[in-house]
């Protein structure tokens, strides 16, 4: 199974698919609950934070394109910058981070199913089935993972349409006056919002799998822009529909909103919404799981399959440790904090270090 160490053309995907890959990896469980966290900080003006975060992450995307070059990925960059041993151990940490995101995203989605759909769901059994699905997709190779991501974007866009209910039942006045909260709070709102944009760091791993990677930058920026618009629309919908005090008391505002939509044939739309959202969750979890496996596969010589199976077993057994709502909440906060530092701290640092190292190499040759 050494074939995936460095991909050949048969495993690559077109650069325009970056739009879908990026969007799918960014939209996960966060889309259902992020409004609560950002509005806690910046009130009704936190939609500006969404825009600012979109802008900031676009800069990070551009930085990533400067860090990795053609047929190069994070592991190469690490060993180039930090040397073999330190580089590999940092890459190892990255791999673990990817896995923990994958596991957390899945587990928090199951939490929703437990609360909203089936109280008496057998979590262990459900997780086994889920990880079988993930194993199936991930072992199929990067192209299958991307295929799933492609599919999931249409699902999330379709679900976004149903936020219209907010505008027809809501109070547009809520958004006025604009800039009522302090700028410093709006900027602070970037931190919780970044959780929704995590997924950009995955490019560092799958860069060699993109055909003509250099030309992909514009597609990645478009993908990031699509996510920004998506979040912005969702934020505005929630703010029109709820007031801030109410929003703080609701764990999943989007699901509550879907409750008022009813069609003659579906009494309560959220049941369909939650079920369809499953595709988005699986897609984003898949990308993380694939990235984690690939990362560990690259630094060790253990086969891709073995790593994937090992970590899906860990994922199934994690249910015994992550067994309460508080634990999931804690884990999500921790991972999102970690992700923010990674995105806005580590990636710029890596860029600077790499520029210095490359400069040094060039000087030696000169």
């Amino acid at each position, binding site marked *: 199974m050494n074939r995936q160490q460095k991909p050949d053309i048969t495993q690559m995907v077109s650069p325009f698919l970056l739009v879908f890959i990026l969007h799918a990896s960014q939209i996960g469980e966060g889309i259902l609950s992020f409004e609560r966290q950002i509005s806690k900080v910046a009130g009704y003006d936190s939609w500006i934070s969404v825009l600012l975060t979109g802008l900031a992450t676009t800069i990070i995307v551009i930085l990533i394109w400067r860090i990795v070059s053609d047929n190069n990925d994070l592991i190469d960059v690490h060993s180039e910058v930090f040397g073999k041993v330190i580089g590999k151990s940092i890459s190892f940490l990255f791999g673990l981070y990817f896995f923990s995101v994958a596991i957390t995203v899945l587990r928090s989605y199951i939490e929703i199913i437990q*609360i*909203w759909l*089936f109280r*008496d*769901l*057998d979590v262990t*059994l*459900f997780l*086994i*089935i889920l990880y*079988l699905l993930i194993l199936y997709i991930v072992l199929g190779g990067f192209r299958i993972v991307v295929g799933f991501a492609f599919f999931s974007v249409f699902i999330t866009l379709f679900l976004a349409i149903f936020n219209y209910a907010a505008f027809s*039942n809501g109070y547009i006045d809520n958004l006025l006056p604009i800039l009522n909260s302090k700028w410093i709070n709006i900027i602070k709102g970037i931190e919780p919002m970044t959780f929704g944009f995590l997924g950009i760091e995955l490019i560092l791993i799958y860069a060699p799998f993109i055909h003509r990677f250099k030309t992909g930058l514009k597609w990645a920026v478009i993908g990031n822009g699509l996510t920004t618009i998506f979040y912005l629309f969702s934020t505005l919908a929630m703010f029109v529909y*709820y*007031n*801030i*005090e*109410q929003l703080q*008391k609701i764990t999943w505002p989007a*699901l*509550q909103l879907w*409750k*008022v939509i*009813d069609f003659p044939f579906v*009494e*309560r739309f959220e049941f369909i919404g939650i079920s369809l959202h499953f595709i988005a969750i699986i897609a984003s979890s898949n990308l993380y799981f694939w990235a984690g496996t690939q990362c560990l596969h690259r630094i060790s010589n253990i086969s891709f399959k073995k790593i994937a199976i090992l970590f899906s077993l860990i994922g199934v057994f994690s249910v015994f440790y992550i067994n309460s709502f508080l634990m999931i909440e804690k884990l999500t906060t921790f991972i999102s904090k970690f992700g923010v530092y990674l995105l806005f701290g580590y990636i710029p640092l890596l860029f600077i270090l790499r520029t210095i190292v490359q400069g040094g190499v060039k000087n030696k040759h000169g």
Partner: protein
Amino acid sequence: MVNFKKLLIFLLLLLFLTACIKTKILDDIELIMMFGYDWDASNEEYIGTAVSPMYGSSEESDLRENTEYMARAKTIQNINSKIDTQTANPIEIGKTLGILFGEKLVRHGIHDILLAINEDPNIGRGIHLAIARESAESLLKSTMITEGTLPRFIEKLLKNNAKTNVPDMNLHDFNYRFLGTGMDPFLPIIEATSSGIELNGIGFFKKDKMIYEIGYDQFFEFKILYTDCEDHTYQFDWEEKEQTIAISSISSKITKKWKNRNQVEIIVKINGTLTESKQLGIRSFKEKAKLEQAISQKLKEEGSKLITEFQELEIDL
């Protein structure tokens, strides 16, 4: 051979699908259509009444039949599980059409019970709430002949009136006004009379207690001040000419103008059709203007009376 193995594994996996959860078959559950909650002050506990339709074993059985269950407890979940002890099948609350609060309960405060209702994801947000005059229990247990079952009738009554006589107020709107700053909720009041059920008031809350109510006569003034409306009817006593006329198909539109930080001017534009005014005989523009003047004068008076009342009681709307 390989394909056969794969197929076998796939079929075996299908077995897992049913094993994850308990199934719910419509015939084997008790669908609660409407809840009523009352407050028992002496024991400090809630009295919950649940109504579910009684489906007979044959198709000819009368669908008007209801069964009511009653339980007392300090928490909502406990009421549900106590009701379970009286039913043959497990109760299911996903189809609840509405929730009624007894008068005693709304005077005592509904904060706790509302949060408990919100907690339950099975209950929709579009359901209608109302206050039951006297007690919700007696209203839900009343045996009157209505169109469809009693819960369906109450739901239709509330839905229909939300379009015409009173502003719309579902569970989400109630929460919105209840939790938001500078807002207080209100609910329609329904009463069981000898002939049927009628909606005869709106109860206004301050925080979570009902402290004020208005009757049918003030519905119109309240609604035009609160929201844009269409297809309304207003009965106007023209005192100068000692005549009563009706204006129908009224549509109104509100604009709010801030005079300064503490003062707001509400301008309501009303369009309507003059009916039942044969004897009056409005034939010239002058007479029409005069009538309009008189109506707007009267509405302004009544409206400001209502507003001062709210201001004195510190009800925010």
